[in-house]
């Protein structure tokens, strides 16, 4: 140091403490009692995620190396598995079907997204909403619908000739329908991010349209394309409802798990298949995480959004494609709804409420619908609050530096775990009577918890994005004014993030209404949910009632989305004075 203020008067009075040997101890501030509350909640949140995410996964790992009596058998289960050709074929089936679905869905979704972002066609909002409709339905709605279109008694069976819709063909087209909106959302975002100035620069240099597409559009959407492919592949390989309903004798990993566990009660082999299913999902998850990181580095706050210019031929071509796709989607959705009102397919096509009245209410299955709404309600309220609060504490409070990364990891992990695997882990864990949480088994609470954990990651990321947009210094300012963190949380953070909280809540509600895989193992006779009831009705051959139940789910999800939309509009109006 070359110069500094004269040493303070008191420094001579207090002899300096000698430095401790070895590693320098990083001193810490004393913790204020209000921060201890934050730490306590964070501790509980992390512990909750550990119990309801890590422990079930650990149980699967454990079961896979035990025999039926619970003795450790090393890799014996894996050996028998790999010596069973029928099971091995499922791996291959799962992989090629998922790959085919990805290869089919991505170009379709990309073209649709391209039309929405780069053309001047009309009714874009309407088209977009139609394309997102499959999200409102359980995936198996598509399977049911295709059975009515192309099944043994389907209206268009003749078109297929000798080919059967049951099996791989039905699975693939149903999955394309179900995954389309997920890919579309990612690709629309990716295509909207490209900087308009790149195109202006290219135009100034006289670049051809094709060259612009190849050198600007595609590279700009590269990460979006990879990310969308990963999402579609993961969805396809871990979906249970579609292969269950339309798969016939075509086996995939997800259906194998179900057959092994529920049909044969062979938990060990079920665990082995779960681990095998976990593998490709985990790989795509890691690739996606890597890609996301690269993409966020590409973003710049200064980009100028691209505004398409009218071009007659191109706009018409785009409109034609998008309307064609939208019509097909409406036909798929519409068929399930239409079939639910048909008296007796294919003999009596008169419209009636028979399936709703006889098939659901009088058969005592309507309760499943009530259960679904109840479960969705709790996920959308308690689940959303838990996720947002945890994200807030992670992002905006201080202290517990070694615990935070652990909780962060647990928050992003669920995306890499297929619902079937999570659900199976839950039974392994909670079926044991020695488990103090055994009382949860078969309860509504476990369905709510499992579903919230299953859809945790997307919700968590939504919360993080919103929280990151708030000034980081709010907490510092509050502390300097000696205002405890929760006051600022309730008075500022929550009101400012309310749109994101609503979005999380809506997302959880809709997914809780439509999920099959995670809850397939966890329901009790009292807590059957609607999507599970569809599987059971279909298995019993009552496809009409299954369609009726699927229709109820779609209508409910759509109505709830409309309510959330109105809430957002109302909120925007109320808060536009300060959002300015």
């Amino acid at each position, binding site marked *: 140091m070359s110069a500094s203020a004269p040493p*303070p008067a008191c*420094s001579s009075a207090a002899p300096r403490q000698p430095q401790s040997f070895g590693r320098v101890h990083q001193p810490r501030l004393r913790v204020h009692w209000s921060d201890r509350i934050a730490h306590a909640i964070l501790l509980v949140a992390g512990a909750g995620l550990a119990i309801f995410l890590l422990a079930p996964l650990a149980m699967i790992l454990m079961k896979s190396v035990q025999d039926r009596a619970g003795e450790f058998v090393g890799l014996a289960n894996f050996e028998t598995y790999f010596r069973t050709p029928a099971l091995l074929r499922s791996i291959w089936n799962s992989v090629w079907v998922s790959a085919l679905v990805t290869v089919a869905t991505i170009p379709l979704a990309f073209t649709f997204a391209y039309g929405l972002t780069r053309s001047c066609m009309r009714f874009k909002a309407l088209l977009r909403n139609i394309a997102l409709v499959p999200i409102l339905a359980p995936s198996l709605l598509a399977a049911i619908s295709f059975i009515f279109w192309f099944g043994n008694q389907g209206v268009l069976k003749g078109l297929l000739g000798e080919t059967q819709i049951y099996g791989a063909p039905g699975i693939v087209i149903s999955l394309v329908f179900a995954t389309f909106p997920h890919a579309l959302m990612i690709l629309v975002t990716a295509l909207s991010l490209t900087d308009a100035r790149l195109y202006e620069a290219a135009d100034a240099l006289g670049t051809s349209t094709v060259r612009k597409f190849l050198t600007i559009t595609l590279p700009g959407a590269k990460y979006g394309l990879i990310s969308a492919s990963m999402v579609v592949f993961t969805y396809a390989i871990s979906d249970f409802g579609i292969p269950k309903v339309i798969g016939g004798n075509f086996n995939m990993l997800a259906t194998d798990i179900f057959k092994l566990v529920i049909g044969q009660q062979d938990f060990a082999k079920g665990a082995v298949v779960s681990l095998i299913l976990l593998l490709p999902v985990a790989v795509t998850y890691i690739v996606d995480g890597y890609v996301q990181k690269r993409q966020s580095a590409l973003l710049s706050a200064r980009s100028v959004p691209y505004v398409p210019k009218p071009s007659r031929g191109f706009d018409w071509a785009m409109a034609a494609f998008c309307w064609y796709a939208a019509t097909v989607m409406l036909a798929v959705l519409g068929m399930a709804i239409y079939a639910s009102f048909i008296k007796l397919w294919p003999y009596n096509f008169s419209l009636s409420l028979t399936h709703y009245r006889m098939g659901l209410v009088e058969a005592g299955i309507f309760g499943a619908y009530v259960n679904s709404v109840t479960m969705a309600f709790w996920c959308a309220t308690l689940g959303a609050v838990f996720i947002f609060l945890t994200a807030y504490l992670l992002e905006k409070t201080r202290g517990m530096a070694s615990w935070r990364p652990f909780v962060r990891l647990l928050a992003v992990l669920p995306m890499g775990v297929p619902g079937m695997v999570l659900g199976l882990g839950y039974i392994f864990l909670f079926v044991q009577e020695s488990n103090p949480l055994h009382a949860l088994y078969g309860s509504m609470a476990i369905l709510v918890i499992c579903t919230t954990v299953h859809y945790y990651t997307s919700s968590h990321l939504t919360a993080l994005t919103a929280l990151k947009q708030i000034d980081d210094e709010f907490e510092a300012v509050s*502390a*300097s004014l000696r*205002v405890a963190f929760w006051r600022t949380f309730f008075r500022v953070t929550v009101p400012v993030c309310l749109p994101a909280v609503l979005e999380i809540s809506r997302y959880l509600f809709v997914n809780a209404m439509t999920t099959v895989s995670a809850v397939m193992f966890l329901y009790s006779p009292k807590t059957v949910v609607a999507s599970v009831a569809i599987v059971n009705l279909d298995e019993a051959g009552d496809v009409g009632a299954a369609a009726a139940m699927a229709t109820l789910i779609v209508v409910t999800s759509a109505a709830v989305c409309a309510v959330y939309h109105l809430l957002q509009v109302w909120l925007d109006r109320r808060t536009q004075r300060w*959002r300015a």
Partner: protein
Amino acid sequence: MSAAPPDFLVLEDIRKEFGSFVALRDVNLAVRKGELVCFLGPSGCGKTTLLRIIAGLDVQSAGRVVQAGRDISRLPPMQRDYGIVFQSYALFPNLTVAQNVAYGLVNRRVGRADREKRVAELLTLVGLPDSGSKYPAQLSGGQQQRIAIARSLATSPGLMLLDEPLSALDARVRVRLRGEIRSLQQRLGITTILVTHDQEEALSMADRIVVMNNGVIEQVGSPEEIYRDPATPFAADFVGKTNLLPAERAGDNGILVGDQRFDCDLDPALAAGRALQVFFRPEDVLVRGVNGSTANSAAAVVEKIEFLGAYSRLTVRVSGIAQPLLADLSVNDLAEFRVRPGDTLRVAVPAGRIRVFEAPAPQGQP
């Protein structure tokens, strides 16, 4: 302890490490009651880290912070006594201006009437008496920053911390607010620390400036001292424009820059044979009244003239000196001497204006 220390805020041997990177190296500083001290330095010099340590937002790796005689080194922010203003204003967007200002008063058992009175008083103090019912987004940047200042003053803290408060504002607003903050601070007599990378801001506002670089304090002094009498080559170069040239010693009262000899006062402590650096400001290069017999004068060829309003900055070359020199000429001088690029002028640097430093060790060595 007999008497309370005269200093309000004392930093003792503050050290901050991030992994193997040392952000602050044993910083010692005493801030007197009621003074405005500026931490000035380039980005990454540790000035903001030091402010955050004082605020309890970062924790020092070693060292003590004493405020008003109380050791606050380990206290969390909520138990310290300061108001803070950030570059981003950090106003709560969903609360009105009045609610923002009253934010710290609400849980201090201040009655509603008193609270409203205090808010009105503070808004008047920062010159925005009628803005109480507005939302921050409806105000300009400068107005928002004034509200942020009012909010931080509401609880009458003993210390005010300003972290680059003007950097997000337009040049014009910045200059005006500079004066307003300074006069407000002097009226209230509140001890204030201002972090800035803008030397003009530091020179115009501070009672004392702390020049920082690479985690150490290079110099502490009044704006005049820092400008006129920089203690290190860094301080000389960072504050104001300067000519900083390599030199070597030539006798007891002179140095050699290239082939040119300059008379100047030499610190006897500077050992002979060591590489030196000389420093003088562009405005210390004289043209008026200089002739062949003037001490420390030389012929210079004008290379470039940069018009800067009240004065012009000349780039000139003196034979025997590799580096071009900067010289500031007033508009009047320029007109009188009719200087054009390519002309030759006789310039001089008075011995008293030249400062000599030992050249800093090459990069990478302590």
